[in-house]
């Protein structure tokens, strides 16, 4: 069916294209700029010649960063905390989320537990009491300080139980009749059916761990224990002087070069999983929404 759209409609569509295009470019432009700086020569960068295309293409900044040292130590800490953190949080979410998905008739204490968890979303002790708890437990400078305090992500727990609640009851009933226990039901029936929400939560939790920096700053005293984002916070955001001195005798790259290269490298894991993130993100929003 082809018909002529009115002038007003066509102007509106044209405006939509223009604004969306401008906003999209504005979103990506600064990132492209940093990418270009990371691949440009020191001279070009210092002269302010670099826009979004590398000038005097050079890999020196990456060579410098790759040479090892603090960046790699921090990168390793982040990889460790992300892997461990995801596994641990998922265990808690699955184990606690399944009973919570039951109705009050099936599990009489369900609403009590639910409020027990939800209350932590309404009120929190704040930064200082949390810090004291972590330090009294002797977790300062330990990897566990980055994992345990947020090991039970209550909001994701709620998303998970909402999803399980929406699964058809028939299969579970049938398993009970066959004499299956709760563990079997969870492992053999619920989990295989929950793959979409599990994938979504794994991605969310992994990104949160990768991007976290504040816990590293307050719970880690020794810089060699910093996760990547905390380490970068000290060199990227805090005054550039530090980066200058740490470059030492390296003369073929500027602090801005190395800073840009490190930003790009830290962003890389996110960019790699981004297609999945995008796919599951919308899904997660729809999956976790409350039905009825």
């Amino acid at each position, binding site marked *: 069916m082809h018909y002529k759209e009115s002038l007003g409609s066509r102007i509106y569509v044209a405006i939509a294209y223009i604004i969306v295009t401008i906003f999209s470019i504005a*979103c990506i432009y600064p990132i492209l700029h940093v990418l270009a700086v990371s691949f440009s020569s020191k001279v070009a960068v210092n002269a302010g010649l670099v826009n979004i295309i590398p000038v005097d293409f050079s890999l020196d900044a990456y060579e410098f960063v790759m040479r090892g040292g603090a960046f790699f130590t921090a990168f390793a800490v982040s990889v460790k905390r992300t892997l461990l953190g995801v596994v641990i949080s998922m265990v808690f979410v699955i184990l606690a989320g399944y009973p919570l998905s039951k109705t009050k008739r099936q599990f009489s204490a369900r609403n009590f537990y639910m409020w027990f968890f939800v209350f932590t979303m309404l009120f929190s002790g704040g930064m200082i009491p949390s810090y004291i708890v972590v330090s009294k437990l002797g977790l300062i400078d330990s990897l566990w300080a980055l994992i345990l305090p947020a090991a039970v992500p209550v909001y994701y727990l709620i998303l998970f139980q909402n999803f399980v609640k929406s699964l058809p009851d028939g299969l579970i009933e049938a398993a009970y009749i066959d004499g299956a226990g709760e563990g079997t039901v969870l492992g053999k029936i619920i989990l295989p059916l929950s793959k979409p929400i599990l994938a979504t939560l794994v991605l969310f939790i992994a990104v949160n761990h990768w991007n976290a920096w504040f816990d590293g700053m307050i719970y880690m005293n020794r810089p060699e224990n910093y996760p990547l984002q905390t380490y*970068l916070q000290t060199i990227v955001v805090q005054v550039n002087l530090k980066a200058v001195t740490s470059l030492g005798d390296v003369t073929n790259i500027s602090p801005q070069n190395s800073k840009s290269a490190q930003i790009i490298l830290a962003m890389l894991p996110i960019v790699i999983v981004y297609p999945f993130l995008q796919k599951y993100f919308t899904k997660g929003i729809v999956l976790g929404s409350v039905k009825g």
Partner: protein
Amino acid sequence: MKKFKKEWPFHLMLLPAVIMVIIFNYVPMAGVSLAFLDYKPAKGLAKAAFVGWKQFETLFENPNFFLALKNTVIIAGWKLITGLIVPLVLALLLNEIRKSWYKRVAQTLIYLPYFISWVLMAGIIVDIFSPTDGLVNRALESFGVEPIYFLGSNTWARFTMILTNIWKEAGWGTIIFMAALTGVDLNLYEAAVIDGAGRLKQMQHVTIPAIVPTIVLVGTLSLSNVLNAGFDQIYNLMTGVTMETLDIIDTLVYRIGVQNGQFSLATAAGLFKSVVSSFFIILSYRLADKLAGYKIF
């Protein structure tokens, strides 16, 4: 007892998570009692004297606290408003783009910053807004505009926070509105076309009514952030000069607590924020339930 026999596996499954939440959420909640003590880390908790509301008095006598409160509300308020309008407009406009590849590319670019940490974003922002060789000032210079100290002057700092917040966070709201828009029945558009409705009329009579519940939901839920002006962003972009317009409650708590070691005073400031926030969180859930039928569980 019979009930427990049947339900014990559920209690067992919940146990690990319950223990973790008690240790890392409920014990710190009890820790807010620090706000009523005079706690010195060196002396230990047992020797801390009970001082009643003294910490709060000290806090309320401190002009920096009210400055931080004012900055928090102003910055958070602007973020709430822009956080609702910008994603809404973007989603409505994206919805008009019928070339599917174009729409996909645009969505990919617009959502990306949301997934990148504030630390990295701050690194980029410091770079592009630099008054000497930043991209933005280089562009302005070519129009003959004098360099602007976006991050270094109190005239511009708040504006820069709100602008860069749109850059980073608008993607999230857009995703939510787009999810709502894809749920709109396409037959409604066809019917509208048959009735002779142009694009604007379709938006007015089909699209907007379809996403009003989502708008109400996002709006009411964001109320819970009235005192969250964004620690991650502000802490990483604030300088000594811009403290006057950027210092927020969270950065103040961090400074007096972690940097100055005044644990009790910082806890009092944190408690003040928690209590006010709780009120707004409960209010926002209530409103979301009433106006949009949203229940958290």
